[in-house]
Structures are given as C-alpha cells and as structure tokens.
C-alpha cells in the first residue's frame, strides 16, 4: 500500500513482446511503459525528455503504431507488441530511416533521435504524409532542440520517395 495515495502498488503480471521476444513481467500499476523499458529492462535507447507526452523523445511503436511511452501505463498494455529503437535494424543492415538519418545528418546531440526515428517509421506506415509540409506537421510531436528539423524532413522524404519507386 502506498502511504501517500492509499492505492495498492502490488505488481501485476503482464506479457509483452519486446523487439520480437516475449517477456513475462510483473509491473506496478503506476509504472509507465517508458520507465519499464528504461529502468527495469535497461532498454535505454528510448529517452525521457519530459515524462508528460510533450516532447516525443520516448516514442516507441506499440502494435506498429507510434506512441509516447511516458503516457502509457505498462500494465494497460498486456499482450502488446513493442518495438523500440533497439529493435529497428541491425549493425549490418540499418533500418532505411536509420540510414537516412545518418546520411542526412538528421540529428546532432542524438537525444531526440530514437524517438524521431520510431516516429518516422510509424509515420511512413500510416501513409498520410505525402509532402514536405505534411511531414513537418506530422512530425511536430517530436521536438528536437538541436534544431535538426530540415535534415529530419529531408531524411524522411528520401525514404518516402524510395518506397514510392519500389
């Protein structure tokens, strides 16, 4: 029992598929998906910039859709399939979005980058963005204080046009 709130913090059993591997976990009801990934599973590629759903640094793919993991309670996602930055691409074969971020220098400090890349992968799957302006608009949930936006848009646009010509 939490003295301050009077709520029970007893751990709940859940199953998550994380980057392809099924994991049985016991999570406190208050634990966010972000803190579960970072603090418990040590998947620290996913970043915390605000913990309030305002910056996008914690973006992961939940059942293929981009989500800010700081606003997702882990226990509410029993059975979900999660892809984090660690699960995209390999050293031998980067995900096309990762490669485009390298080629276009679409990052500087790199702190927003895992979130930007997961968000871009989700965006491409959504299929809504067709123009540079649409990319700008639909990527605006992912802040980049280094101001790499022009290169981020170019990187995503380049992947979009590769897909187009496939």
């Amino acid at each position: 029992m939490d003295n301050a709130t009077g709520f029970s913090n007893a751990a709940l059993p859940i199953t998550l598929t994380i980057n392809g591997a099924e994991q049985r976990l016991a999570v406190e009801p208050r634990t966010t998906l972000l803190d579960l990934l970072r603090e418990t599973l040590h998947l620290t590629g996913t970043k915390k910039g605000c913990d309030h759903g305002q910056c996008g640094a914690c973006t992961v793919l939940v059942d293929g859709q981009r989500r800010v993991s700081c606003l997702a309670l882990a226990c509410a996602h029993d059975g979900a399939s999660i892809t984090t930055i660690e699960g995209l691409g390999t050293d031998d074969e980067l995900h096309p979005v990762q490669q485009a971020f390298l080629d276009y220098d679409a990052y500087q400090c790199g702190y927003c980058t895992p979130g930007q890349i997961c968000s871009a992968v989700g965006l491409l799957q959504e299929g809504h963005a067709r123009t540079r302006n649409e990319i700008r608009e639909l990527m605006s949930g992912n802040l980049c204080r280094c101001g790499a936006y022009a290169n981020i848009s170019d990187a995503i646009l380049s992947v979009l046009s590769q897909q187009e010509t496939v």
Partner: protein
Amino acid sequence: MANANNISDLASAAPPASIPRRIEGRDKVRGRARYAGDITSQEMGGVLDVAVAVTSTQASGQVLAIDDAAALKMPGVRLVVSHENAPRLHKIMSLTGAEIGDLLPLQDAKIHYAGQCLALVVADTLEHARAAAAAVEVRYSAPDPQAAFTLAEDGGRTKDVAKVGGGDPGQVKIGEARPAYEKADFQVDMTFLTAPHHHNAMEPGAVVAAWDEDGGLTVQLPTQFSYGEAVILGEAFGFGLKDRLPRLISQVLGGFDFNHKVRVIATLAGGSFGGKTSNVHLLLAPLAAKLTGRPVKLVLTRAQTFSLMPYRGETQQRIRLGADQNGQLQAIIQDAVLAKGTAGQFVEPTSEATVKAYSSPNILVHQQAAALDLNAPGWMRGPGACLGQFALESAMDMLAEKTGLDPLDLRLRNHADVEPDTGKEWSSKSLIQCYQAGAARIGWADRDPRVASMREGGRLIGYGMATAIYPVKQMPAVACVILGADGQAVVQTATQEIGQGMITALTQIAAETLGLELAAVRLEWGDSALPYGGMTVGSMTTLSAGAAIQEAAQQVRQTLLKWVVQDPASPLHGQPADGLRVAQGRLVAPNGASEAVAAAMARHPDGSINEEAITGRTFGHSPYGRSAFGAQFVKVSVDPDTLHIQVERLVGAYAGGRVINPVLVRSQLLGAMVWGLGQALLEESSLDPRTGRWMNTNLAEALVPTNADIANIEAIIIDEDDTRGHPLGVKGLGEIGIVGTSAAIANAIYHATGQRLTSLPMRLDKLLAARLNA
C-alpha cells in the same frame, strides 16, 4: 506501406558520402549512444540508487521544518538528505560564474528562489523515490515581501557592472558618443526588451556519483567542462590541492599531472547550449552518495530544470544611433539593464557584438545588472551577442528607413574595415560576400522595399535582414597523440561532445595531420583523467582542442619521418625526412618508394610514438581582430486578420574560416538559426510576479520550435582563409547562426506590417497591441 502515395516534394540530395558523418552516429541512430541518465545498476557493479529532488514552493524566507517521517517509512527509501543532515561543503570558486560559486546546496535553511533544492530522497527505484519525494512535507516561514523577480520592480538593485560574460568590459567609451548623437543628422532612439527563456535541452540535467573505498569520487554527467567540474568537486568536498585548481593550472602551464582522486567523466550531452556546466546537481548526487555509501543517480524532471538549471535572463536595452547625411554612423549608444541572480556572477555580455559590428567614431556602452530573487541566469547559446544584435540590428533597420537607404546599403556604408573597438586589422573578414550571397539567395533586390506593400495569397509579405557576428577566441588545451605499433593512433584530450560534432571534427584534424585514414584514429575525450581539454563554450572547441591536437600530431609525424628514414629495414631508408608525405596511412618518398605506417611502426623499438602539445596559453591573443561574420535574410508572411506570423524562408550566409566538416557545420548553423527563430517568435519562460515561480515549466507551454515552425531554412557557407588568424584556420560557427536572426525576423515583420516589434518573443498579441496603438 505508403506506396500508393504521390510524393510531391523531393528530398534534397544527401551531402556527398566523401564527407565524414558523425563517428558516433551509428550509436545514436541505433539507440546505443549512452547519456548519463542511461547508466544502469549493471554498469555500477549492481548497485545504483535513485534520487529525486524536493524543491521549494516559495522564493524567500526560511525552511522551518522538513517532515520526512512518512517518506522514510515508504518502501525502498534509504535516505532523505536536507540541510539538517547533509555534509557541510567547502566554499568553491566557479570559473564560469555559476550559481554554486555563491550558493552551495542543502547547507542552511535560507530560501533564495522558488524551486530551490531543499531535499533529496534516495530510494532503490525511481518509482519509490518519486512517491517518497511527494510525501516529504516542508514548512516555511513567511516569504519576504521585498523579494523582486523582474527588472520592472528592481527596487534599487540596479548597479553598473565592471565585467560582463567571460570578462568583457561592462562599460565601453570610444570617442564622445553623447554629443555626436545630439549633433547627428539622423537619430534613432529605441528600447528593446527580451524575455527570460530556458535552454530546454531535450536531455534534462542528469548525474551519477559514486564514492570508492579509498575516498575517491567519480561523477558522470553531461557537462561542457569536465576539468572545471572536477575542481569544483575537489574544493567542495575538501580534497587536497591535487584535486583543486592547481591541477588545472599545472596542466595548462606544464602539461604534467598529479595523482588525483576526483574524476569527472563527461558523458555525451543530449543538448547543452551553455546550460550544463556547474549545475547544482553536480554537487547533489555526490552529497547523497556520500551519506548512503552507495552510487546515486539523479535525473531532474523537466519542471525542475527551470529552477535547478540556468537560463537566459531578462534584458532591457536602449539603443541610440546617430548618423550623418550619408548614413554614416557617428554614434552608437547602448544602455543595458540585465537580470542576474542574487547568487551567481554571470551577466550577459550584451555589448560583445555592439562594439565590433560597425565602424563608428563614437561608441558608448553602459551595462548594469540587477540581482533578482530567482535562480541564476547563465550562459546560453550566442550569449549576449544575440541580444545585443537583436537591438542594434532592429535599430539599424529603423535608421535605414529614416535615411531612405536600403537596409543592406546602410550596412555596407558602415562596414567596419578594422575592428572598431581596438582598431586592429581583421585576420580575415568576408562579411560583404555573406551579404551578397544571402541577398542573392532570397531575392532581396526583387522585393518591393516599401513597407506593407507586398502580399501573397492574401497574406502580408515582408523581407528583413541582419548582420551576424561572433568573436573568435581560443582557450588553452592539452592533447596527447599516441601512434601505436599497429599504425593506429589514439588522441587524448578532455574536451566535450554536446552534439556539435566535436568527436568527428577533432578526429578528422588528427587523421589529416598524421596522414592516416579516419578509421585509424580514435579520440578519447570527456574524462578529466585525460589531458586538459578546456571548456566547450563560445564556439571555441574545434580551434582550441584542434590546435593542440594538430600540434601534437605534427610532432608525431615528424618523429615518425625522422625515425623511418634512419631505419635500415625501411624502403624509405636514406630519404630526406622533410621530403616524405604521409597520406592514407602510407609514407611516400618523392622517388615513389613507400611504406605503410603500420608496417613501419611494427618495427618501432618503443612500440609507439607519443607526443603531447599545449596550445592557447595566450588565449589566442593575436595582432589581428578575429571574428566570424554572417548575415541572415528572412521572408515572413503575416495573416492580416489573425496576425499569425510565419517565417517562410530563412537564409543565412556565414564565413568562419576553415570548415573541417561542412555537413556538421551546416547542421550547427541551421540549428542555431532555429534557435534564433524560437527566440524571435516563441520562447519565453513566464514568471509569476507575485511568487517568483516559473509558471510554464513544461514543453507544452514553454514553447520551442517544432518541425512545423521551421519552413525553408538554408545555410550558405562562404569559403574563407583565416590562416593568418591561426595556422589551423578555424574560427568556429556554433553560435553565430542565432546572432542576428531575431532582428532579421523583426525587420521582416516591420516590412510586412509597418509595426515595429521591440520585445521578444514577438508573438501575435504584441503585434495586435502594436497595431491598436498605431
């Protein structure tokens, strides 16, 4: 997949693959790059407690009691540290003027500002620490009714300052500016205000501290000055002289080192922008770890970064310009009032660019500071210069209108052919080329110069421009270069990577000088156990650390060449050493004989060649004036009904000497221009004037530019040879992109609407007010 889309925009071509990309880039795009907050218990020998800060809700008065009884009973809680039980710290000196130089944390009950750290809760997990921190109750005495938080209510606190920034003069008097202004044919007199705003790097402040059994201390954190942090820790925790300032000085003077017990490891910074040096959390985590005897990690919440980290403080500037019939400046007068903290020594160097921007026989700068009951402002990207240029370049636009001159023509007429405040010749200056390139790119000559004359699609269109200038400085640095038996080199210098691309640029300098492939050189950086690498500030890293690396690498090369021609086993035996070239890992003689560096080094009797160099002891003192220059040109559109302001195009042209890596430099320039746009239109940390609390302590309300705010933005890099300024030829371009951008936007808004906005950020409520008052 999105294959059915019709892609209507083309991506710009990626820069050529021949330009090296960030060496740590793969780690960054794969989520493997490690930041301080990512450090896990596994890496700390299985133990890593988590601390959460409890902060003051009041800006003044005293803490009467900290009731931690409930918190201490909660699961996993190890400790609550407050002034009641914290170890006493020794007074420190902050080389950067940071708040902790005057105010050490958790030492007494006095409250200096809202959001001050009053306690730390340490627990086994983040959830436990956070829950317990919420359960700590603080009782306060009544707040001080005399507390002041804004320049408007300074209550006699405003005082002249002798020094600003890193030691620039607070007062400057060249000629007789007041009478010259009074007599001038054309006069401009305008006051400009700028709001406080925070760095808001995406990575909040974070630190991991661990004490070892022998009383040694290791601290890992993002910082711009690992040696400086080590010295602060050495002083605060009462270590001996070997861990205090003498260590730093002996490194710079003699390049020799002591055994030391404090080690600071600068981690990759997730953005810093001036904000991550000597923060209070540097001391907080070691304080807690000392009491628990276990490693402690402390990561600030976003809200806490507003009061536990610095920001750009509020400023007021009155600018007076006097010009003759030809538009030639006769007087520049700047009167500035700048916010500072009651603790902390930092005062914005708003005059930094003002005294170097234009030729004027008379220049007068009068800077004052008011100590407010807030956490201390500090260094932030483009410090001082971006504020001074907002005011000066807005005033220049007003002068252009008064004199009937094109704003660009006015600037050309006042071009400073020599450094105005010193009279020195410039080492190099390509400002005119920057003006020409930027003007051509935006189509400056094609605009209708009349105010409020242009429209597109129902929106008002305006163009504006401004001059950018950022001084070149060099700091002392020590570098060690070791060429090993395998022909691979290790370069060591304790400088910092804050996203600017230091790792790549410095590795390139070493590889080029040694004649090795980039992959054959590895840079070791950021760790205060390495040779002194200086501060990562003021766009100085590439020049400062680069100069030391270049010199040490040259020595290694010389030593290698001298040895190889004397080695009978080498195909180069007997060749003249100074005739040899080294490139791509091969030694080549003029007659075509050659040998791989690795093959030669495999025979080297010592197994390696080690050289060390110390540079910058004179702080880059030069017979020349040294500055990077640039110009921004902006096109804005304004909705005539809603007054929504959109920057349609932002073009910057810059000349900063030699560019080591154009991909990285372009990114920095674009990033700094994004900062300029944010400063111009969005960024403001709002204060509650009654309580002194920051009110918008989150990223939804403290606006920073998003992707959608950034329209077409371009950075043009002008070739420039600055080898007479420094043999490396580098000036530094990390900050200049923000200097001038806000003025160019203000000038474009004026051109579009006829409304002169003089207060940053220029949000539409201010445009509405200007229109209603017109």
